[in-house]
């Protein structure tokens, strides 16, 4: 079990949250992107073993999107911040 401290709701079990995915690749402009660029955005992942920034969604709480810093080798969480709704890069 891991605990995420939601900036709005406080410390909650990760079961309350939905995992969206790692942050990183910026969504290309669909009008300008080549098929290869678009597919790279869709499928390629950094899949970092270590500290990573990712998007979570507090589906059973404030229903806000959050930016979480987590070590994927230990599941230690460093920070949970409000993402200000849906961030541009996701």
């Amino acid at each position, binding site marked *: *079990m891991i605990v995420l401290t939601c900036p709005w709701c406080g410390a909650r*079990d*990760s*079961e309350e949250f*939905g*995992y969206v*995915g*790692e942050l990183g690749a910026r969504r290309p402009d669909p009008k300008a992107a080549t*098929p*290869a660029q678009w*597919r*790279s955005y*869709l*499928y*390629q*992942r*950094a*899949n970092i*073993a270590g500290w990573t920034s*990712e998007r979570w969604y507090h589906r059973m709480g404030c229903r806000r999107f959050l930016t979480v810093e987590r070590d*994927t*080798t*230990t*599941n230690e969480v460093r920070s949970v911040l409000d993402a200000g709704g849906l961030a541009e890069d996701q």
Partner: protein
Amino acid sequence: MTDSAARAHHDVAKQPAGRGHPVAALRRSRYSALSLLRHGIRGDDWPLAWRTHDLRRGYQVVIVGGGVHGLATAYYLAREYGITDVAVIERGYIGGGGSGRNTAILRSNYLTPEGVRFYDRSLTLYSALAAELNYNVMFSRRGHLTLAHSDASLRTMRWRAEVNKHSGVDSEVIAPDDVKRLVPHLDTSSEARYPVLGALYHPPGGIIRHDAVVWGYARAADSLGVHIHQDTEVTGIDVSGGRVTGVRTTGGDIATPVVINCTAGWSTTVSDMAGVRMPIQTFPLQAAVTEPVKPFLRTVVVSGTLHVYVSQTDRGELVFGASVDPFASYSTRGSLEFVEGLSTHVLELMPSLDKLRVLRQWAGVCDMTPDFAPIMGATDVDGFLVDVGWGTYGFKAGPVAGEAMAQCVATGATPELISSFSLSRFARGRLVAEKGAAAVGH
């Protein structure tokens, strides 16, 4: 044939073929009833199943990852093609990753003809493995049941059964009464939360001793001349002019023209070293085992709706598995949520197990691809081949993947059986549709 594969073929073809003589080496330490008796009377030690070697400065082929995929690849390279100048580099101990953490279920009742052909070949290799490797892998063909709890899943199972039968694979949809006869402890009443409407019955499926498969391949590969280096971590892969030139490890540097990434859980990390990007996310998959009880469950029972699979080992323990954890991680720590959810679901299937205690739980890490199909064959870096992305079902594909990867390296051609699994399919948008890839989760 790709350039990379062709070059790999050119490089390995330079060494003399060794077909024939290594088989004699295999016979030297043959296990048999007679050798058991002899060792029993003499009371002397058995020879080590595989040896340790000093790391050579160069190998024809370096395989990263000493699990069933890596060791099977090494074995078939040596056995089928006489390529014995091979090193298997393992960070921990062999079979300590996915090969030792899976629930050891084998089956070939997939949904697409390609999937059925692929896993049927694997099952064929598995069923001959004990005799071929002279190692008891304890393959028990006890039958495999996938339960249908809804009309939709029953429909898919009829479809799967027809595809299976068309490919000559024994598979049939059976009624709840027949399910009850096969598994008397199953709650097949209509009052169940998820009533059993039928099941896909696959008699050739079963379970195997996964450690024995790893050890059997290791022993056979070792006797054919393959070097197995445990406790040796790959720290870098040297690429020069778009092709592989060597591997750096904690035991020293190796010059090699061919590197095969056969890791699970760490396939992104290893591919990153060669500068090859992977469409992979790593998720833990948890499993648990109960205390041993008298044999009462013969078949493997799977419920996709309840996300659980159950089998009873020869020792009497019940082995439970589920689907992957809800978030990406490399951590192999178990979680309470998993056992809670698992026990609830198991008791919905078999309420009479409520007094059974869970002995231990564990996790393995699974490399999930966007289409849940593996990534096999050549990459953009010449001489760097991959056999990764096996998700939650890598163990049952071990022998056929090893055979195909060995063929890739030795002949330079990508076998037709794995041609749709190339890494380039993601850039081309040609994803594989195999929804029957794993019984639960997808």
